[in-house]
């Protein structure tokens, strides 16, 4: 195995593979700034170029592009509140409020540094896990995947409301998200639900326009209302120190970053769950790490921990997602589905062979992710302070540009005008949610996980009756879910027992 690890590294370091990776990265930079297009669409359009490449070269090229697009996605998330890659929305929740406070540099520094650490930790975890990864994945059947999804949604829902009424709103939004996920052709009997007679809705609502709309449009409206630059009218001097501060933050909260990286790898590995879920689970974990309710309230308003958690998971999940793709041919995301196409073109067969006979190629993919991330982050760090200045350009000039990013991004999801309309409608929904205090994160998780929850629940019941409830991992996950839901109350109770509240420094070390 160790040999394969080294062989894999040398496969990437060959000059041709390395150059191709750099070319891929260049492309990734260019398109990564545009939401949606950063992922699958571009990868697909690059497939014709891989015909003449060797597997290591092709994956260096494609994954180099993919890794950079994931990283640069964080940049638009922080600066404009536009989720870069469809699912990197979790960084928006705390990253953009920081930008609005004039701390764009710090948020970017933290997002990129945690991404880098996440990629490294993820790669190490993955390298160590490869011998056991097949049995691990195979122990997660439909019942386990169902409970894992339930756990995922409970994490964020239980944390997003303050007080009893807040909880009601949190759960309502989770349910609304679940309801929206049922639009389209259902998988059991193939009947159409809530399709309104529109063919566009047969496959359900696409994630990209929904997420981009619900997060970006409210920010654009807010910017127009304030009539200032994104960072308001703060003196730009504050910016200069920002990036370094963000990097320091990453190490101040090292254990949080570490844990979130591991969450990213683990959830990424689960077939079907998809990497986007990983980011939200990491975000939920960050919120959970808050000391008490008062500390928790800082999230969503620009807490650095809310940037670090999803940032770390964002890149560690990329490694994790490789596993179901490579070892089982089950892609965890659109981008991975395209990568599978490259597999076929290369004449490689996803399956057990990739973890034994072609292990070096698999490791070369992991290495590509690591190397591309390191290079991308280092390059970005040089320009971040400059990029952060964008938040000081007057709103009137920046709004049309952000709008363009938003709509081009959502249009590329399916290439239809309807995508734009969906973006707009969910933008309105998102605006009112923020205005009236109904939290968006539970909605997003419900929407992302809804199909999985329904599918795996039905399969579990029709396959096992109710005996699946006694599967050991299922029992464990049920207990975890109960704990997660009860956690805020336990915390409250313990605090009550301990005495008066003292508000803590937001930057206190959580390790």
């Amino acid at each position, binding site marked *: 195995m160790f040999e394969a690890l080294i062989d894999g590294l040398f496969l990437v370091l060959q000059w041709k593979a390395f150059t191709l990776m750099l070319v891929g990265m260049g492309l990734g930079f260019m398109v990564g700034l545009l939401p949606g297009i950063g992922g699958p669409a571009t990868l697909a359009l690059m497939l*014709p170029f891989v015909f003449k490449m060797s597997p290591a070269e092709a994956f260096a090229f494609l994954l180099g592009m993919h890794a950079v697009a994931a990283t640069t996605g964080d940049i638009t998330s922080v600066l404009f509140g536009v989720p870069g890659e469809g699912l990197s929305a979790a960084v928006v929740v705390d990253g953009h409020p920081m930008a609005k406070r004039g701390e764009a540099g710090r948020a970017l520094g933290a997002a990129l540094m945690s991404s880098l650490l996440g990629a490294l930790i993820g790669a190490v975890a993955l390298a160590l896990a490869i011998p056991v990864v097949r049995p691990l994945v195979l122990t997660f059947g439909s019942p386990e995947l169902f409970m894992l999804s339930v756990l995922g949604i409970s994490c964020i829902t239980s944390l997003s409301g303050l007080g009893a009424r807040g909880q009601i709103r949190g759960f309502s939004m989770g349910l609304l998200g679940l309801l929206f996920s049922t639009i389209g*052709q259902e998988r059991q009997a193939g009947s159409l639900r809530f399709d309104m007679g529109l063919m566009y809705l047969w496959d359900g609502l696409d994630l990209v326009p929904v997420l981009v709309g619900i997060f970006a449009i409210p920010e654009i409206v807010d910017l127009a209302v304030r009539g200032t630059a994104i960072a308001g009218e703060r003196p730009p001097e504050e910016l200069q120190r920002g990036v370094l501060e963000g990097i320091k933050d990453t190490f101040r909260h090292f254990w949080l970053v570490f844990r979130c990286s591991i969450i990213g790898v683990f959830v990424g590995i689960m077939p079907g769950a998809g990497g986007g879920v990983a980011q939200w689970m990491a975000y939920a974990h960050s919120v959970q790490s808050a000391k008490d309710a008062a500390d928790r309230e800082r999230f969503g308003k620009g807490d650095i921990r809310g940037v670090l958690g999803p940032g770390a998971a964002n890149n560690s999940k990329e490694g994790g997602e490789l596993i179901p793709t490579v070892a089982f041919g089950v892609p965890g995301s659109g981008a991975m589905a395209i990568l599978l196409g490259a597999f076929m073109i290369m004449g490689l067969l996803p399956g057990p062979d990739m973890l034994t006979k072609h292990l070096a190629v698999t490791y070369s993919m992991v290495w590509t992710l690591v190397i591309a991330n390191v290079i991308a982050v280092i390059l970005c760090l040089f320009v971040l302070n400059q990029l952060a200045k964008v938040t000081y350009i007057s709103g009137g000039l920046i709004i049309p540009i952000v709008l363009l990013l938003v709509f081009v991004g959502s249009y590329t999801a399916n290439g239809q005008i309807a995508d734009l309309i969906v973006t707009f409608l969910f933008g309105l929904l998102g605006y009112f949610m923020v205005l009236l205090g109904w939290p968006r994160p539970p909605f997003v998780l419900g929407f992302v996980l809804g199909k999985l929850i329904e599918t795996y629940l039905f399969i579990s019941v029709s396959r096992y009756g109710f005996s699946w409830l006694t599967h050991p991992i299922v029992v464990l996950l049920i207990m975890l879910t109960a704990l997660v839901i009860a956690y805020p109350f336990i915390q409250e109770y313990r605090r009550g027992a301990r005495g008066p509240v003292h508000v803590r420094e937001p930057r206190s070390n959580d390790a």
Partner: protein
Amino acid sequence: MKRTWILSVLAGFLMLPLTAVPARAQANFYEGKSITIFIGAKGGSLTVAAQIVAHHLGKYIPGKPAAVVQFMPGAAHLLATNHVFNIAKPDGLTLLAANPNVGIAQLSKVEQARFDMRKFQWIGSSGGDGVMLSVRADLPYKTFDDLRKADRELVAGTTGPGSNAHDFPLLLKEFTGAKLKLLPGYPASSDILLAVERKEVDSWSAFATTVQRAVDQGAVRAIVRSRVAAPGFEKLPVDEELATNPMGKAIMGIRGIPQGVGRAFAAPPATPADRVAILREAFAKVLQDPEFKAEAKKAKIPMRYISAEQISKDFAALLNQPPDVLKEMGKYIKAGD
């Protein structure tokens, strides 16, 4: 400060389009243009096959246009098919990499199927692909007879009605007496195979070339096939011959026709005849191209040239069914992909 920032960004962008526009003379229609091939999926072997064809199509067309595959997923390929039939400009620059199964949707008069497969300008097909049913390799069932006499119902994972994964075992269960229990709902074909590996599911049906890969890996064993045989599996029993009544045989036969058409390419109905001729000729040459063959072999997709006339003939046959068969078929088959 602000001004210089904006200016510097601008300077870069302004120069680029000027250099990018080709100012070549248009010697013939295709020169300097690009052909867009729409496909109603986002991945899978149909997509890869289209990519391989696209990779070589341009070089056999005078003017050497680029050919780009563009995804337009939605409504089980109906969206892309509707688009190319009704909306795309019939200028010979837009093609459809069709999923011939949408012909079943037209046959069962699905309201959203706004096209006529008989009116497309077919370019040719890169080969048909049958469907095979397989069972997990560690199970004791080795032949079709074992399936009939099995001591329990085998669980067949499916992606839901209308898919090959669903309809193939369904018809076998209804018309041949195979002991199968359908478990629909898996997101994609590959998810079923994964479920087979974790022993959640016993049987998996998919395109023969896809099943073949899993057979090679030792995960499953192929048991029955549909009319179109994959190389190496010619000796497997065929579903139509196992059917215990003529109606079942007829319905299986209908489902078999699109599989025979396979990965067909089409141009919008009003495409000028001279351009259709150019495309047909180029397509036929692509299928003979040694590089193309090598790439197809590497991707393990068996390619076989099927002419435009043959495709038209097959769709004409498909769409010409007696009403009683159609009515009976409606009970079992839901149109989709």
